[in-house]
């Protein structure tokens, strides 16, 4: 049996226990990516993230990870970005004016608005466009005040609505970015994680 391992990018403050537990349930262990080389070479990589846009980007920049992540996503290497991880793909965010994102996709992350509670905390729909291969329709757990509202060219998107309609997930081959938390989304999230791991050739 081959050792199934996924590299995880530590963005400093991200809560990784739930991600680690969800991976372990699929028979996959995680280790932390500790160099730009590691980010480029890992067979499968998870970019989790909670906290603020600028703090996470500062950390990625300081460790020389940003360019490696951009290159990895551009090359289509198996990557799973979660929550703030998806937002870091964008060029900028209203959360941290002036801070530069990875720019793996065009567009800016904007604050949620409308007659709704913010942050959005709880289970909301995921509605995939027909082009999605990994994301299926269902309910997922979200914890966000900001979101990307446009689908970038070349990506398939899933959608949800909280005050405004926004991107619930983006996918392009084995690159999957989720605004929701698959690791906290019960059996539906576990099944999505399993499909991504299978596509990444890691397990299952």
């Amino acid at each position, binding site marked *: 049996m081959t050792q199934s391992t996924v590299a995880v990018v530590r963005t400093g403050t991200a809560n990784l226990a739930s991600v680690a*537990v969800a991976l372990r349930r699929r028979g996959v262990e995680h280790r932390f990516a500790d160099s730009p080389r590691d980010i480029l070479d890992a067979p499968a990589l998870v970019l989790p993230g909670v906290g603020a846009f600028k703090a996470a980007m500062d950390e990625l920049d300081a460790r020389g990870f940003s360019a490696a992540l951009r290159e990895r996503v551009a090359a289509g290497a198996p990557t799973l970005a979660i929550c703030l991880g998806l937002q870091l793909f964008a060029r900028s965010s209203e959360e941290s004016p002036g801070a530069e994102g990875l720019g793996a996709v065009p567009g800016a992350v904007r604050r949620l608005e409308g007659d709704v509670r913010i942050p959005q905390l709880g289970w909301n*729909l995921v509605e995939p466009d027909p082009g999605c291969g990994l994301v299926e329709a269902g309910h997922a757990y979200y914890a966000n005040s900001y979101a990307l509202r446009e689908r970038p060219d070349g990506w398939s998107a899933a959608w949800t609505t909280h005050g405004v309609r926004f991107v619930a997930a983006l996918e392009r081959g084995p690159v999957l970015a989720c605004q929701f938390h698959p690791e906290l989304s019960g059996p539906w999230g576990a099944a999505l994680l399993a499909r991504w791991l299978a596509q990444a050739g890691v397990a299952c």
Partner: protein
Amino acid sequence: MLTRRIIPCLDVRDGRIVKGVRFQNLRDAGDPAERAAAYEAQGADELVVLDVSATPEGRRTRYDTVRAVRGALSIPLTVGGGVRSDDDAGRLLEAGADKVGVNTAAVVDPSLIGRIATRFGSQCAILALDAAAAGPGRWEVVVESGKKRTGIDALEWARRAADLGAGEILLTSWDRDGTRSGYDTELLAAISAAVRVPVIASGGAATPDHLLEALRAGADAVLAASIFHDGEYTVADLKRQLASNGVTVRP
């Protein structure tokens, strides 16, 4: 559309679930990880673990409890009770909590909320607000597991905590907690109107109608303990009842 959440709560002391009225006369109600897994299977949207250990030894076991519960769950986990610093919050997050509730320590030092929000994000920083009636349309904050009244206006404190970065308010009615007489809907309506962050109703639930009343009063989520522990209702029972009354819940 965002669904309304049903959140079972486990009051844990020295690694075991306990229950009682107003935190008094505690009796054993089972193993936290086992109950957590059962509630997830019933359709719980989230789980709260409140550590009510009275001793430092008891409190040290809570990290093991959190790890065990996290290992049994694939839904969000909030942990509260005795959180005194952002380092405490960090240790709970590392052990497997997704959100951390602060109560007494935040009243003593409100900047704690901002420190947790800055380090871990607002969605991690939950204000546990225990309120007791202090006159018509007025409630005051109570701390130290209800032993101490502070004289602080509950609405003002809710607003201030949200400004400081609290991403959610877990609102417990001290007058209703453990009484099975229903949530304090007047308190819920007042706090929900005072802040923009989500509000979780807690204290007093005994019937599906109580949950419905709380959601109609403005709560985004309803928390309950004994009705689940006693097996009176499953989460699925309650969701069916709420759905048949027009409440959007996760199937």
